[in-house]
């Protein structure tokens, strides 16, 4: 069956350090992989998208890598700040099959950045 796993339910780090979140998937042939941020009681906010033929993408302090051989994406926040504390969701769109075009989400990782 298809599965998207974000390995850590919760991640605690100190301010200024780099946070690294992991997303692994099975039985997908993703066209895109996306990362979202969700604050409590709010809808997710789109952060970054990386395509199957891209290895890495950056946006300010954010970096996403995508390894289709390992079936894994890593999401990095450098120089983390307490304001980065939130739940981060990984999401996939399949390139084909019955789930084509539909965005499926992982369970999320709750990141807490301590001052």
């Amino acid at each position, binding site marked *: 069956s298809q599965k998207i796993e974000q390995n850590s339910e919760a991640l605690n780090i100190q301010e200024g350090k780099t946070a690294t979140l992991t997303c692994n998937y099975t039985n997908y042939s993703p066209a*895109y992989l996306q990362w979202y941020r969700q604050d409590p009681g709010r809808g997710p906010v789109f952060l970054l998208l990386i395509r199957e033929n891209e290895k890495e993408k950056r946006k300010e302090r954010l970096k996403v890598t995508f390894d289709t051989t390992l079936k894994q994406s890593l999401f990095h926040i450098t120089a983390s700040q307490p304001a980065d504390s939130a739940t981060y969701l990984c999401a996939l769109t399949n390139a084909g099959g019955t789930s084509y*075009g539909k965005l499926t989400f992982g369970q999320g990782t709750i990141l807490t950045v301590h001052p």
Partner: protein
Amino acid sequence: SQTIHQWPATLVQPVGSPLSLECTVEGTSNPNLYWYRQAAGRGLQLLFYSVGIGQISSEVPQNLSASRPQDRQFILSSKKLLLSDSGFYLCAWSANLGGSYGYTFGSGTRLTVV
């Protein structure tokens, strides 16, 4: 710029009562529209999506239905709510199916069925 509106923000409904949640998008035409549900502490589950007026695809058989009476309006309904329908309901839109430019979510409706 594009905006998405979802209401109400919170709703407490008794078991067996009807439900209607509305979502509208502004600033774009022919958006792809989605309804997701998020149970407490869990990921988002896709319930319905629509690629055009009157076109609804259901992802999960359940007590809910969706309609798209206008291009930028998406409605989630139920004739009789169950306790298990409680959750956080999110509407979203994208420029294309699968969202190669990302999805934009509304602020959500917290539904509690009592």
